[in-house]
């Protein structure tokens, strides 16, 4: 197996809170993972789980308060803006809103060649580059003169992809690449990303709340809850037999487009707690149907099981149902 291209080690992101003597909010609370070349790694979680914050930290848009981030053998979290510059050619990021992440007063041509202008590759033939990039993402060349608001969501997303691959990066971080797109267009974007990954040998980090998407595109998946990875592993394994109750609940909460399916659903009481008042012990115990006394006092550490890791004192066996619901399955 090849060396990881990205290693994230025990990273923590703290947001300051106004007021004297108050501790900051931990948006990301000690997360470790690595990504190997050619691999797709997925970060899954509900809103507020810290997945976007983590991605921004990896991209150097958000300072971290603890831990270490290494990219292609260099430590990047301590780098200055100038030092980061060559790194930015190797690692690009795509943002959630397909149209909103494109500068509204620039043409598609200007947008896709902006990476070259930023990185001083002015010597290149911009026209040729525009044509190359647009055809790579499957857009007609005459789109170069259009403005973002003249594009559909899917087309704008393709422009975003073109920008991301312009400088031949080694890693692409895609934040909700299918957000705001219709089902019939989602596939187009995911196929495009997958195709580019195979052709250009990219590594990819995909951030999403859509579990079905993850199932099809990701090699490995990490499930986040309140800024922590509560379960990590090969996607097939995690989806096939979740070990952490939250993963199980999340998977069972996903309505499936099959009217004949009988749902054995793990319902979660209450809502996600606020980051301002992180529960003591295991952070999931306030909603966990299997929670026991120990869970509310001691925080479980990360347990490794082969290639998988999870944070739970009482990991689930395949097909487990919460106490009192066993008959439902």
């Amino acid at each position, binding site marked *: 197996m090849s060396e990881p291209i990205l290693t994230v080690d025990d990273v923590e992101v703290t947001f300051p809170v106004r007021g004297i003597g108050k501790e900051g909010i931990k948006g990301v609370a000690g997360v470790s993972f690595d990504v190997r070349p050619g691999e797709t790694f997925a970060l899954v979680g509900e809103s507020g789980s810290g997945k976007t914050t983590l991605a921004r930290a990896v991209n150097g848009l958000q300072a971290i308060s603890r831990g270490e981030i290494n990219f292609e053998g260099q430590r990047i979290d301590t780098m200055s803006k100038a030092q980061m510059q060559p790194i930015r050619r190797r690692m690009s990021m795509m943002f959630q809103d397909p149209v909103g992440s494109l500068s509204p007063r620039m043409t598609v041509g200007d947008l896709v060649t902006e990476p070259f202008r930023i990185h001083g590759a002015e010597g290149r033939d911009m026209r040729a580059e525009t044509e190359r990039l647009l055809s790579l993402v499957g857009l007609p060349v005459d789109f170069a003169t259009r403005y973002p608001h003249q594009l559909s969501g899917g087309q704008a997303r393709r422009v975003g992809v073109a920008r991301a691959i312009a400088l031949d990066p080694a890693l692409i971080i895609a934040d909700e690449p299918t957000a705001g797109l219709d089902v019939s267009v989602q*596939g187009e974007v995911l196929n495009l990303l997958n195709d580019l990954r195979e052709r250009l040998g990219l590594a990819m980090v995909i951030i999403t709340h859509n579990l079905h998407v993850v199932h099809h595109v990701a090699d490995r998946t990490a499930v986040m809850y309140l800024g922590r990875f509560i379960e990590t592993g090969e996607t097939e394994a995690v989806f096939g037999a979740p070990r952490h109750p939250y993963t199980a609940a999340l998977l069972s909460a996903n309505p499936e487009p099959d009217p004949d399916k009988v749902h054995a659903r793990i319902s979660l009481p209450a809502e996600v707690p606020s980051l301002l008042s992180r529960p003591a012990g295991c952070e999931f115990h306030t909603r966990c149907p299997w929670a026991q006394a120990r869970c509310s006092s001691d925080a479980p550490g990360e347990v490794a099981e082969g290639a998988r890791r999870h944070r739970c004192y009482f990991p689930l066996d395949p097909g487990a149902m919460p106490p009192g619901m066993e008959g439902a399955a």
Partner: protein
Amino acid sequence: MTTLAISGLNVWFSTEDGPLHALKDVEFDVPERSIVGIVGESGCGKSTLINAILGLLADNGSIEGGSIQFEGAQDLVILGPKEMQDLRGPRISTVFQDPMGALNPVLTVGRQMVNIQYRDGGSTAEKRARAEEMLSLVRIPDAKAALDRYPHQFSGGMKQRIAIAMALMMKPALLIADEPTTALDATLEVATIELLKDLQEEIGCSVLFISHHLGVIAELCDEVVVMYAGEVVERGSVRQIFNDPRHPYTVRLLECDPARQTSRSRNLPTIPGEIPDLRQRPAGCVFAPRCHRVHAGCDQAQSLVEIGEGHAARCNLALEPQTAEATA
């Protein structure tokens, strides 16, 4: 009795670049005590349909022909604004997509719930009691105290439950739910759907449920209407639609949902092309430019072909079962 019977409904908008045919010959029923789902992607006319039913079309829109029979007694198309207003609330109520914006920010939840009952006699105390009862029914903790709080003091999921409580407080005959779970996280989405289903059974109303999420539709609805570019392209029971789709668009739409694919695949199906400009509708089938089974007969206008009990599709190939060839 049918709660809502829509037939031949056409809606036009006047725009700067000419008239836009937003809804064309829309036709379907919402039977009593049933949940009917409307599926479609952006631009299919879902919101226009709701506004047409509620009599809240924008100023530049107008209904040109067709009827919307409500409880077999009133045609909502020809009803005056005053009579329409009398129906909205007690007989037809609505839950909208955006839980953040659906409640008035400067009035307390209790005040708003009391205001809705303005038609009923009785003291404010009685109305508050009724509101409190509804809030506990949708599982708002400490319902009494919740009445005196402002909307921004609740989380998104709670706001949506409050909106549902408000919508069902008058025990309407028809509840229109416009993407009520789209803005919510997965775990909340399921809880909201289950709540909606429980309350629908308890109150015995019909629900018109709009969503682009096929999973939610499959789980919640009895019948499904598939819309594309302002037309009903297929309708039928939930099993007919999901197990035996007859319109090529329905077939492709179902295929595109990654959740429908049992085996893990890196190459996901798509529908190439885009929705046509509704200012220049094609003369024939609207889906023809993107259809994988397009043939000579498609340049003619299509009519809804009856396939079986309650099952119809707007395609001249509707009587032939759709096979797996679509994937090719």
